[in-house]
């Protein structure tokens, strides 16, 4: 790409920028549907496959793609994502390669919201938060999810991300106190990420009343200010319907997808299996209409 093209590309991105996430939620809300957010670890099983898998996810109906940049010590993640991070790191995946992946996806999907998920140390390394946010923006990223960056430590991160027009998605938990929840809502952009259970990422068998209760509670406080997306452990269409009934505006499917990848690594039907799984979840996401 020569400089001119690069600048043109960048200008185009700036125009859309965080708007992609907001636009997506507007469209879905008109259709009365719930957002389906699908997660992949960049470089698991390898970078080339990650790109192919995004194609599969998008075709199957994913509304937003979340890309995980592997970190050596992911304290909020269970065995599935830990394992995928580990394998990706063995494949020598690094943030630069992850951002290059996003840039290729951005070219292919100009309107697709793409969010990075990683840990704070990756973001502050190599020139600091500002440099990382800038590089992300240039690659076509729309926002960030950083599970170990809570609002107390996020002053600089919020400042540089919002200046760049990128979304800062903060997490809330079932035990978050009301006053703090209000502050999290006001500091989040794109959407709010509500953790549905006490625990780390990974498939859950079923959800308890606590989950529905906390979704209702957060929705009451957030009103129409920001979409509320739930994640951690969602692995079946019935989970999705459960979250929607409680009022969720979106669901994040992460470990469940990685589990399918892991158990079909060498299978020629991996793509088909992911496709049919995601289509099932997508159908459940339409059930807001029912």
């Amino acid at each position, binding site marked *: 790409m020569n400089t001119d093209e690069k600048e043109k590309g960048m200008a185009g991105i700036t125009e859309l920028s965080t708007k992609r996430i907001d636009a997506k939620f507007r469209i879905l809300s008109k259709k009365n549907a719930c957002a389906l957010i699908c997660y992949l670890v960049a470089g698991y099983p390898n970078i080339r496959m990650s790109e192919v898998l995004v194609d599969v996810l998008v075709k199957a109906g994913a509304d937003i793609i979340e890309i995980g940049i592997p*970190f*050596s*010590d*992911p*304290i*909020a993640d*269970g065995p599935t994502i*830990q394992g995928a991070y*580990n394998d990706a*790191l063995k494949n020598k995946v*690094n*943030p*630069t390669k992850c951002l290059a992946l996003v840039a290729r996806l951005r070219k292919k999907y100009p309107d697709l919201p793409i969010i990075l998920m990683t*840990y*704070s*140390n*990756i973001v*502050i*390394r*190599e020139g600091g938060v500002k440099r990382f946010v800038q590089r992300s923006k240039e690659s076509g990223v729309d926002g960030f999810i950083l*599970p*170990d*960056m*809570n609002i*107390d*430590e996020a002053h600089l991160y919020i400042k540089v991300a919002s200046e760049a027009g990128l979304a800062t998605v*903060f*997490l*809330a*938990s*079932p*035990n*978050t*106190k009301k006053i*703090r929840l209000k502050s*999290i809502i006001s500091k989040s952009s794109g959407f709010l990420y509500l*953790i549905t259970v*006490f*625990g*780390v990422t990974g498939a859950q068998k079923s959800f308890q009343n606590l989950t529905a209760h906390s979704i209702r509670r957060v929705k009451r406080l957030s009103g129409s200010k920001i979409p509320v997306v739930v994640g951690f452990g969602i692995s079946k269409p019935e989970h999705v319907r459960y979250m929607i009934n409680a009022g969720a505006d979106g669901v994040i499917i992460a470990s469940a997808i990685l589990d399918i990848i892991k158990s079909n690594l060498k299978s020629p039907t991996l793509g088909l299996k992911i496709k049919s799984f995601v289509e099932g979840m997508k159908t459940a996401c339409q059930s807001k209409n029912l």
Partner: protein
Amino acid sequence: MLSSYPTDNRFGKYGGRYVPETLVPALDELEEAYNKFKNESFFQSELKYYLEQYAGRPTPLFFAKNLTKYCGGARIFLKREDLLHGGAHKINNTLGQALLAKRLRKKRVIAETGAGQHGVGTAIACAVLGLSSEIYMGSKDMKRQKPNLTRMRLLGAKVNPVHSGSRTLKDAINEALRDWITNVRSTYYLIGSAVGPHPYPVIVRDFQSIIGREIKMQIKEYSKTSQLPDAVVACVGGGSNAIGTFHPFIDESNVGLYGVEAAGKGIKSGKHSATLSWGSPGIIHGMFTYLLQDKFGQVSTTHSISAGLDYPAVGPEHALLKDVKRVKYTQCTDVDAAEAFLLLSKLEGIIPALESSHAVSYAMKLAKEMGRRENIVITLSGRGDKDVEVMQKYLATKDKKSQNC
């Protein structure tokens, strides 16, 4: 004044609380409870009772005459934390935090352990105070610190092996944090070093500062003057015995403070744990501190002959003390530590932990450069019974080498 840190949850720019949201209410609750009880006389007298009647405080400050003569320099004193119940300084903190756990009405206690000393300390405190304990330990450490593994089990603790990452202390902390996120409502996380999210580095420092306070009084009694030691030396892994030793001296500018990290097989080998010497600032285990990491921010695999120092980060207060140059952080290799281990055993009849041997080794060099009227205090953080197997191997290799020569 340096002793007044932290302010705003931080030691200068270090520290903070980089944790998932689920843990924020638990850390708030812990901080509130700690601030309430730390000055409460009933809490303090209960802690004092257990420290004196059960753990064996105060520990002696022993004048190591033979070692002093051998080095031919400053007078060397040993702060005998190795004589505490459980065999290490860890119990100062585990008793304090277990009493806090009781006041928070948490019946289940979890902890991480590297060398197993903190695991043993936690198991002991929980046994005597009627709490249940589960200890996370890297599977690599389980192999090299077998005696402590058995001790924890005998004391009624459940030991959970950790197979992820480098299978050492770092990964044990990750796994303990994951457990805490999952069981936060019923569980107290008893961190063993001056690391982790605020307020842990403060709590651990405060409970361990009894080491430095006793040294201060004991050295005065010994010299019958108001003289303070000229130098104080402690080993630094996460840094709990070191910060406990240093903190009461931080504002005494005429006392030289020396923290000794594990140089392992040397900086060129890449196999070491000398975080402050050769690391750079980063975020791990909920804190901003010095970290051994690659240029992308992935945490490095560390090495040390002593499991207790085999950790890629360090307590955030040490990071501040390094930057302001109040403490001199230096290193000692595996071989030098092992030699100091052998020497102290023979000269003074004291078998030190391999961790503490790092401090002994550096202090011997330092003593030689100091005057005969000067005093140097080494904190002997633990005893070396747990290390006899490792030392047996060391001696066998050494014998082989000398035969080949």
